């Protein structure tokens, strides 16, 4: 099909034909040539067998991509610099140690299988009719569920304070993925590239020696709580509820908007990477700072991590015992069941808020009666 204005004439001094089929090297240039007329080079230094002559790209590999040629050019620049400065050539990138090691088979075994949710595709008969994309987009819920499959494990735990570590072995014993390891000298190591960032060990370490690496979660939950409660208590006359929510659960469902609208209580959400990371002292501290009710909402059945329910249950049980000795009703601390549906989540929170509201009323009445 002819293209308009595509025939024209220009003047040049030199025209280099770079069609990339085969290098054209003069015989007397004395470079070693290999299969397909490609130039032979030392794989580390990128030097040909002629001193000071470097080669890369299609001339070396034969027909290949522009990207590879660009990369070769960049690498050659480094090598030329080393050559001119008489520096020892650094090993190429590929031979340096990998940033992360593959996951151990045992760890893989212990990770919960959650199948990939493929996006819907255009039925075959509809594809031939036009150029519309074959792969369609997810609906909101499926998108969240698929995103949930990412464990955000890059946040990996580490023993930040080895001098605090008493080698009590709690982290080793509670890890659902058997990640912490005792080395030969009896020191505990948590290999960050194996860790799946559930945060159970962070919350269970009796010496508070373990932290999750990701800056987002390193932010102290306590600071967040204190800030939240201080401002909320100042501004609201409604009873204050604090919710510890995993980012996939309450957040992921888009329920928040629903919550703010419907609530009969003032609700502050503290986001966490995983509810298994919520520590007992956070729960108690919320009450200490004036919360009338505290709830924990995870991602429920969609949870990609192991045993989070068990950890939440344990922590709630322990805090409830303490609350009981303080005369605070156990019902004020709840784990809310979530199934990822916005409506039911909002409803669960609303019901909880109502329950707490009734408890507050009863308590207020009792105080009046006592007076």
């Amino acid at each position, binding site marked *: 099909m002819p293209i308009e204005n595509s025939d024209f004439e220009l003047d040049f001094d030199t025209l280099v034909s770079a069609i990339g089929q085969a290098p054209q090297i003069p015989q007397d240039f004395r470079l070693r040539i290999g299969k397909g007329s490609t130039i032979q080079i030392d794989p580390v230094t990128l030097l040909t067998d002629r001193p000071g002559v470097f080669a890369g790209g299609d001339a070396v590999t034969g027909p290949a991509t522009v990207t590879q040629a660009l990369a070769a050019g960049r690498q050659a620049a480094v090598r030329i610099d080393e050559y001119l400065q008489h520096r020892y050539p650094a090993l190429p990138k590929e031979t340096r140690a990998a940033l992360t090691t593959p996951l151990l088979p045992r760890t893989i075994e212990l990770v919960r299988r959650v199948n990939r949710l493929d996006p819907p595709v255009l039925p075959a008969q509809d594809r031939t009719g036009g150029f519309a994309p074959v792969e369609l987009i997810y609906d909101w819920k499926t998108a969240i569920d698929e995103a949930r499959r990412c464990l955000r494990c890059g946040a990996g735990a580490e023993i930040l304070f080895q001098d605090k570590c008493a080698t009590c072995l709690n982290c080793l014993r509670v890890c659902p993925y058997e990640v912490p390891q005792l080395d030969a*000298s009896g020191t505990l190591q948590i290999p960050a590239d194996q860790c799946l960032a559930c945060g159970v060990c962070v919350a269970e370490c009796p010496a508070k020696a373990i932290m999750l690496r990701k800056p987002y979660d390193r932010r102290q939950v306590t600071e967040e709580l204190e800030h939240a409660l201080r401002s909320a208590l100042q501004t609201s006359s409604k009873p204050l509820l604090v919710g510890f929510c995993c980012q996939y659960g309450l957040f992921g469902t888009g329920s928040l908007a629903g919550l703010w609208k419907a609530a009969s209580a003032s609700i502050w959400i503290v986001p966490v990477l995983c509810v298994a990371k919520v520590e007992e002292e956070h729960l108690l501290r919320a009450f200490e700072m004036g919360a009338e009710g505290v709830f924990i909402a995870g991602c429920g059945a969609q949870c990609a991590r192991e045993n989070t329910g*068990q950890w939440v249950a*344990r922590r709630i049980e322990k805090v409830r015992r303490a609350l009981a000795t303080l005369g605070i009703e156990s019902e004020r601390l709840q784990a809310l069941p979530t199934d990822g549906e916005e409506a039911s989540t909002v409803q669960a929170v609303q019901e909880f808020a109502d329950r707490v509201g009734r408890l507050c009323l009863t308590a207020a009445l009792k105080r009046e009666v006592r007076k």
Partner: protein
Amino acid sequence: MIVAETKPLDEIWRSIAPYSRVLILGCGTCMTVCGAGGEREVSFLADALRMSQARGGEHDHSLLEYTVKRQCDAEFLETFVDRSREVDAILSLGCGVGVQVVADRFPDLPVLPGNNTYFMGASSEWGVWDERCAACGDCRLADTAGVCPITRCTKGILNGPCAGAKNGKCEANKEADCAWILIYQRLERLGQLDKMRRYYPPRNFRVIPRPRRIVNKTQVSTGGNDGQVSV
């Protein structure tokens, strides 16, 4: 701190005599601190046993040496499983707890104690250890100004003192202070002598009957792999 002393050499020698290859296993925690079973004690003992063997004209025992961070948690014992296959017995220089955990882990090997474990105590000066706690499970140090009448009074009485003290020292051990005179002096200093004037009823000797166990993980019956919590 758990405090122990290494058994006399001849007793250890007799107990390992039937076994030609023995692993001497040290412990890097309490036994190191009290000098009864750390890495140094292990090598010293191994040398002494080898010398003892040589002087006796025998040469058919071989001794391996290894020290773990702690013997009382089985995970630490995994580091020498391969070595355990090369020996006929393990001589543990752990405290009584360590010896038993090692024995549980290696039921096909005789595990022999190299130490006599005495008590839980503290070091007042280098090389000196005093018993301080009897693990009675019913701590009453608030009533005795921080002096335990069970470990520091030879009779362990709760309404002390008895009439046996002379020069402030115990009738049974003239180097030990009478605990109740000490309690009196401390309470007087704190202005809390009324605590000593109180009647203390007979002790509960079976706070947790033996064999003793505590479980401190919160037991929950629900909450499983599906992430759901029913609390």
